[in-house]
């Protein structure tokens, strides 16, 4: 069952990277969307939410066309850096990041919208600069909502299958994540392997959820 442990390690690695990337991207974009007003803002919001509603295989296809060796981005990367993304773990991370992005972005935007802008104004008047205000006022107050989005993002990235299969393929030890390993075990009639993989995946997901529940920061004390 060494295959299962390899697949597990790979799945956690990919999901971890995807969630870390989404932390930066999702929170950044969520904050911008919450605070900036410009024509077409809601249209942009809808476009950024698209990966959540699109079938993963469709998304995977778009990524394949974009990042493939004949695609605009892929050809450029190959020419300039000799980088071929398809069938690499980096492609798996990209697929998982794109698919889970809306979960963090939407949660972050909603969380920042509940932060009273007057608090940020007060901070400005106290002489604190914009970036500091973000880290000292906006982010701490929005953190719990963002964390909820991050958890969902991690879970989604763990289970990512369709888009990953398209751009990262299924290479044992490199891109064969748990979901893909299960799929292939079933196709090959290896039910015992499939059962074991499913059990490992389930236990991992439960463990992550429990651990994350402990990490939710303490509440601001209420008036007794």
């Amino acid at each position, binding site marked *: 069952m060494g295959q299962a442990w390899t697949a597990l390690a790979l799945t956690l690695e990919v999901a971890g990277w995807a969630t870390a990337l989404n932390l930066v991207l999702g929170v950044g974009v969520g904050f911008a969307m919450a605070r900036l007003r410009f024509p077409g803002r809601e249209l942009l919001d809808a476009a950024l939410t698209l990966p959540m509603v699109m079938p993963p295989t469709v998304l995977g296809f778009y990524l394949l066309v974009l990042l493939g060796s004949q695609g605009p981005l892929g050809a450029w990367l190959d020419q300039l850096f000799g980088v071929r993304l398809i069938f690499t773990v980096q492609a798996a991370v990209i697929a998982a990041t794109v698919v889970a992005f809306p979960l963090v972005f939407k949660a972050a935007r909603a969380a920042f919208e509940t932060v009273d802008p007057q608090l940020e104004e007060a901070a400005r008047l106290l002489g604190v600069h914009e970036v500091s205000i973000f880290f000292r006022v906006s982010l701490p107050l929005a953190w719990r909502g963002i964390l909820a989005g991050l958890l969902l993002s991690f879970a989604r990235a763990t289970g990512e299958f369709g888009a990953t299969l398209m751009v990262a393929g299924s290479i044992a030890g490199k891109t064969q994540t748990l979901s893909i390993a299960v799929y292939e075990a079933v196709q090959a009639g290896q039910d015992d392997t499939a059962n074991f993989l499913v059990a490992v995946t389930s236990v991992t997901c439960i463990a992550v959820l429990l651990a994350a529940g402990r990490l939710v920061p303490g509440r*601001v004390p209420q008036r007794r």
Partner: protein
Amino acid sequence: MTWDLELTKRLQHGASRFELQVSLRSAARRLVLFGPSGAGKSQTLKMIAGLVRPDGGRVRIGTRTLFDADSGVNLSPQSRRLAFVFQDYALFPHLTVRQNIAFALSGGWRNPRPRVHDARVERWLETFQLPAVADHFPAQISGGQRQRTALARALVTEPTALLLDEPFAALDGHLRQRLREELAQVLATLNVPMLLITHDDADAQVLADEVVHLRAGRVVDAPQAREPALA
């Protein structure tokens, strides 16, 4: 001249649109801008603070020019060195009273630690009788204590002027009176000009050296018969 204000702005209040045009020069140390709700008092204060950009005009306090449309001066709220107390105080709910007061003293990306020890913070805690609740959160203290915390937080930066937006509106009558007198005492020891906006007559009586009346976005020149204090 302590206060030199020329402000124009097109505003929308509810369904009505009106043009705010405040022209005001005063040497008073304690100026009260008095008027009913919807007169444009809050907007005026926000423009002085730099939170809202006027369509045109200038803002000068003492010798400092904070805004001048003609010469393109527009200091950010961070650089205006003003103390501002919001109507509902805008205390940071995730920080203790002590951390709130110490907020402006750290410029970096991190908030002051809960056990922060700074002489300036301690002084203001004492002045406003807050040491007992210094380690409490805003949600755990009374309205009066919150107002004082907001004041202390604003004053710790040694500002060049103090702006107050209806500071007693959220409090009940008896408390209001007490805090009004307290504020008067604190102001007596400070050498900082103050501009307070209110629709409460009593505020004007206790705290003002001069009262300017604002109605429908304009300063009303002729002395008005005293308006009954609006609740």
